[in-house]
C-alpha cells in the first residue's frame, strides 16, 4: 500500500481508490492517538519540514503532531512572505532546503500553485498544506473521514458548502473529494463569491441558502474573510450574516440528522452562530481530531518504504 505518487498536491489528482486507502489508513491511525503512549516508531529517522509562508497555528500544529507521533523529526519554518530575501527565487529556497536532505516538505503558501512548483524543484515528497485559493487536500480528507465516520458512508450523500467559494481552497478540495466518492455537492454563496465555471469541478450552484440547507446531509460552512468587504464582495458583515449565516432558525429547514462542519477558525456570529457551532450537530472538534490521523496516514503512505523511481 503506497500512493502512486511522491507528493500530495491536491485531491484533483487522486482517484477514488487512493482516497479510500488514505481514509482507511487514517482510521487505523486514530487508534494510535487514543493510546496513552501516542507514538509509534514507524518514521524514525525521517525528517519533515513544515514550510509555512502563511500563518496557521492549527494546520501546522496538526502536521507537526502527526509527524512526531510517527517518530519523524519535524522542523517548522515560518516565513512571512514579506521577509523573503529579495533576489532569492522560490527555486533557490527549494534547493537550499533540499540540501538539508528532508524526506518531506509540508508547504502552506498564499500563492496558488506554489507546492506544484516546489515539487518540481525537489526530490523529496511535497505535501500541500493549502495553496492560495487552489487546494487543501489534507483538510478535505479529514472532512471526508469525519463524514464517513458519522454517516457510515459518503456515496449518495448531499453535501452543501456555503460561503466564499471563490477564495476557498477547502471548497475546491472538498468538491473533488466528495464527488469522487459519489456524493452530490452544492456550493452556495453570493454571486460575487461564486467563481466562473465552478460547476465544471462537478458541483451544482445556488445563491439561496435555504436551497442549500434543505435536504443536505452535511453542511460545511466556510470562514468569511472580513477584508473581502473592501473588495465589494459583500456590503457588510451584518447583511452577509443575515443572508448566509447559519443559526438555529436556518437549521430548522435541515434534515434531522444533518451534520455541520467548519474548517476553522470560526467567526462566531458571522457565518455560524455560537449555538450551532457548539450544538449537537456540529462536528467541528471531531474534524480537528481526525486531522491528525489523516496527516499521519499521509506521512505513512508517502514516506514509508524506499523510493525506487528516481526524481529529477
Amino acid at each position: 500500500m503506497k500512493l502512486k505518487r511522491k507528493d500530495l498536491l491536491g485531491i484533483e489528482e487522486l482517484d477514488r481508490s487512493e482516497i479510500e486507502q488514505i481514509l482507511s489508513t487514517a482510521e487505523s491511525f486514530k487508534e494510535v492517538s487514543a493510546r496513552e503512549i501516542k507514538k509509534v516508531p514507524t518514521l524514525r529517522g525521517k525528517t519533515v519540514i513544515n514550510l509555512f509562508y502563511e500563518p496557521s497555528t492549527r494546520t501546522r500544529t496538526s502536521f507537526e503532531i502527526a509527524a512526531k507521533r510517527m517518530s519523524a523529526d519535524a522542523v517548522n519554518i515560518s516565513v512571512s512572505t514579506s521577509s523573503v530575501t529579495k533576489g532569492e527565487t522560490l527555486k533557490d529556497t527549494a534547493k537550499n532546503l533540499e540540501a538539508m536532505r528532508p524526506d518531506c516538505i509540508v508547504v502552506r503558501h498564499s500563492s496558488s500553485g506554489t507546492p506544484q512548483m516546489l515539487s518540481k524543484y525537489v526530490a523529496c515528497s511535497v505535501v500541500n498544506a493549502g495553496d492560495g485559493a487552489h487546494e487543501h487536500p489534507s483538510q478535505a480528507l479529514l472532512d471526508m473521514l469525519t463524514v464517513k465516520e458519522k454517516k457510515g458512508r459518503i456515496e449518495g450523500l448531499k453535501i452543501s458548502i456555503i460561503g466564499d467559494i471563490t477564495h476557498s481552497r477547502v471548497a475546491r478540495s472538498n468538491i473533488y473529494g466528495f464527488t469522487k466518492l459519489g456524493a452530490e455537492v452544492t456550493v452556495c454563496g453570493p454571486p460575487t463569491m461564486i467563481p466562473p465555471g465552478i460547476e465544471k469541478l462537478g458541483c451544482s450552484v445556488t445563491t439561496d441558502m435555504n436551497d442549500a440547507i434543505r435536504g443536505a446531509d452535511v453542511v460545511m460552512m466556510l470562514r468569511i474573510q472580513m477584508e473581502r468587504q473592501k473588495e465589494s464582495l459583500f456590503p457588510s458583515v451584518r447583511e452577509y450574516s443575515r443572508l448566509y449565516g447559519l443559526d438555529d432558525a436556518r437549521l430548522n429547514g435541515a434534515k434531522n440528522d444533518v451534520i455541520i462542519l467548519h474548517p476553522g477558525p470560526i467567526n462566531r456570529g458571522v457565518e455560524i452562530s455560537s449555538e450551532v457551532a457548539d450544538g449537537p450537530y456540529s462536528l467541528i472538534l471531531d474534524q480537528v481530531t481526525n486531522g491528525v490521523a489523516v496527516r499521519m496516514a499521509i506521512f505513512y503512505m508517502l514516506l514509508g518504504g524506499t523510493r525506487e523511481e528516481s526524481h529529477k
Partner: protein
Amino acid sequence: MPWRDPLKTRVVMDEMAIERAIARIAHEILERNKGTDRLVLLGIPTRGYHLALRLQKKIEEIEKATVPAGAVDATLYRDDLGIKKTQPSLKKMEIPISIDGKVIVMVDDVLYTGRTIRAAMNALMDFGRPLAIKLAVLVDRGHRELPIKADYIGKNLPTSAKEGVKLHLKEVDGVNEVVVTEED
C-alpha cells in the same frame, strides 16, 4: 480455497491436526499459568488473531472462564518499512483491557525469523507493562534471526529457507490446513 500447484505443495497439518494442536496449547497454557488468572490472549493479525480467538474458545470449553482476547498489530513497528517498496496495510489493533501486570500470550501462525514477534513486543510495550509475555505459535519452522523462542508450539517443522509455510484458516481462507510450498 486458495489455488496451489499440487506438485509443489504438501499439506503438513490438516483440520484435525490443527484442532488437536490448539487443544494441546490451550491445556499447556492453563497448566503452566495455573488457570486463567491474569491471562490475556493477543493474536498477531490476520491469522494469529483468529488463532487467539480459537484458543479463547477452547479455554472457555475447558475452564468455563473467558480470557480476554485481542489483536496486536506490529506493522508500525516493523524494521523493514524503509526497505520494502510498498508499505504493508495497517491491521487490527485491539487491546481489550489494560495489560499492566498481565500475562500476555501472543499468538501467531508461523514462527520464522522472529522479527514480527520483536515488532509485536515493542508495540505491546507502548500499551503498558505486562508481568510476562509468552509466545504461542501453531508452527515453528526454524531459521530464527533474533534470539526469540516460542513457549507453546503446535508443531515443529524443519524447513529449508526456499520453502514457504502457510496456515490457512476457515475464517480467512475457507479451509483449515498448514501447507509447505516449494518456492521457485
